[in-house]
């Protein structure tokens, strides 16, 4: 039974990957832009899913880290440096700043932590806007070049989409492996019960800082792709609303589920596009459907599936218990 389910999952995964490779061949420029944006936002949301979903640390600053990554990429590549170098700098920079942002989390939790990260988000936005000597302020940075990867230029939308998709693939594999490592287990323990985790030797301080640092570094990766995707950046896309959008992607998709960010980003990026035919009403419909979803399932879309699976397993377990109990009673 379980084997069969596993094969179904693998088949479904392969079909999804093939679809992501083949279907865009027929898409126009705009469609490819939206899909690339989905891939980039999924990477950032995966980072937040690690910090919030797995390790249980609220952050309203993920958008600011996307901004840091995007500015690093924009500044470096417009100076003629390769995007790979910018990627390295973005990752290191966001990792270090994310690590520092983790320190307040050692003292405050939940909505208090949300406010601390919100303050950081605002601070970052002000820095992007006011530190014109490096960010060019409200005028932004234009003519951001797209990279040439292994001799293939990615100037056209389709090759650039494949670059985003490949990056998403690499990040997904790394994340899959991270959450299955002992670290993933420790992050979960930190989320579920930090006091018990400590008593089992889990260094909750270091894991908290790591959750912030790695989650932020992934936002840096997303930012590094975002700059050449739009080819022009200014401070506005990286204000608080991006952080809130990313938070919504994680929660709507299902926080703490591996595929949550994929679904969440799909809804946040694609649904408004699909609802465009309703003209003025699309934002309202979009908001209403998110509210309805969260009332029905506060744990997001994948939470619905998980709830069904858990119910079935609990039933099996109690059946096991009942049969074990009756065999004990039957014993002399």
């Amino acid at each position, binding site marked *: 039974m379980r084997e069969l389910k596993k094969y179904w999952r693998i088949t479904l995964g392969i079909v999804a990957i093939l679809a992501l490779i083949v279907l865009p061949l027929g898409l126009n420029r705009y469609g490819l832009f939206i899909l690339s944006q989905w891939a980039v936002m999924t990477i950032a949301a995966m980072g937040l899913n690690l910090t919030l979903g797995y390790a249980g640390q609220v952050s309203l600053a993920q958008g600011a880290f996307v901004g840091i990554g995007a500015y690093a990429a924009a500044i470096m590549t417009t100076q003629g440096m390769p995007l790979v170098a910018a990627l390295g700098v973005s990752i290191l920079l966001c990792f270090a700043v994310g690590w520092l942002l983790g320190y307040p989390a050692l003292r405050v939790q939940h909505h208090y932590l949300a406010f601390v990260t919100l303050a950081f988000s605002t601070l970052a936005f002000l820095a992007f806007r006011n530190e014109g000597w490096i960010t060019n302020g409200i005028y932004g940075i234009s003519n951001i070049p797209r990279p040439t990867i292994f001799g293939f230029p990615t100037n056209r939308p389709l090759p650039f989409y494949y670059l985003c998709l490949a990056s998403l693939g690499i990040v997904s594999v790394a994340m899959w492996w991270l959450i*299955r490592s002992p670290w993933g287990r420790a992050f*979960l323990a930190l989320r579920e019960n930090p006091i018990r985790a400590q008593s*089992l030797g889990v*260094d909750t301080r270091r894991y908290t800082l790591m959750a912030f640092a790695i989650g932020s570094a992934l936002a840096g990766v997303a930012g590094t792709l975002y700059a050449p995707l739009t080819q022009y950046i200014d401070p506005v896309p990286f204000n608080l609303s991006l952080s809130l959008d990313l938070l919504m992607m994680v929660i709507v998709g299902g926080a703490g589920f591996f595929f949550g960010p994929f679904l969440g980003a799909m809804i946040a990026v694609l649904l408004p596009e699909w609802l465009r035919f309703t003209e003025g009403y699309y934002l309202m419909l979009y908001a209403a459907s998110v509210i309805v979803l969260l009332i029905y399932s506060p744990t997001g879309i994948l939470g619905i599936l998980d709830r069904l699976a858990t119910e079935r397993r609990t039933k099996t377990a109690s059946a*096991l218990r009942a049969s074990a109990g009756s065999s004990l009673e039957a014993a002399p």
Partner: protein
Amino acid sequence: MTAVLEVSDIRKNFGGITAVDGVSFEVREGEILGLIGPNGCGKSTLFNCILGQLTPSGGEVKVDGKIVTGLRPSELNRLGVSRTFQLLQVFPKLSVRENLILAGQEHRGSMMSRLFGASDAGMTGAAERMIGFFKLDHLAGEPAGSLSYGQQKLLDAAMAFMGGPRLVLLDEPAGGVNLSMLADLKERLAAINRESRATFVVIEHNMEFVMSLCSRVVVMAEGKILAIGRPDQIRGNPAVIEAYLGH
């Protein structure tokens, strides 16, 4: 015999209330020490002070002769001091096996080596042995939250032993556990104590459990130690009968 745990003059004040008031005792290697006393007499607070969950207002804790007062619980745990809690503290969404692997993994290698090593940190074998030892075999793959209360209590105790501790502090291991499972639990604890020379301190209200398992018993009342002695001495101590056991 050397002392594994030495507690000297531990005090803990919460505002104007003195929950633990100058408690001193030592626990010898391989011993099972019972800690009894009426509700609110400071037993759990004392545990929390020993284990670094609370910072004592005064006094000193030594493990194997080394001062550990002020260490964080995770550091203390990696020095070989483990505990269970009064209320259930298993990870309900993880399977029984995963709970045990989690309980042991931080004792293997460094944080970096665990990131790049095997996903079970090499703990599956030890986890399976512990599952067999506590007779949880048929439940190994089930989420801990779907187990019965008594089974979760067994798992909770088993988790405390995964790191191969020298000293284990058990806070009411028998609370809410039915009679047949209680006998099982007592036998398992005694066996671990015999085989690995692990030293235990046990808080418990079940007198039968304490008197038959422990070699010595400490009685606390109102934050102070009322008596220390062998179970038979404690049972006959008039002050203890007055304060706790009743006539």
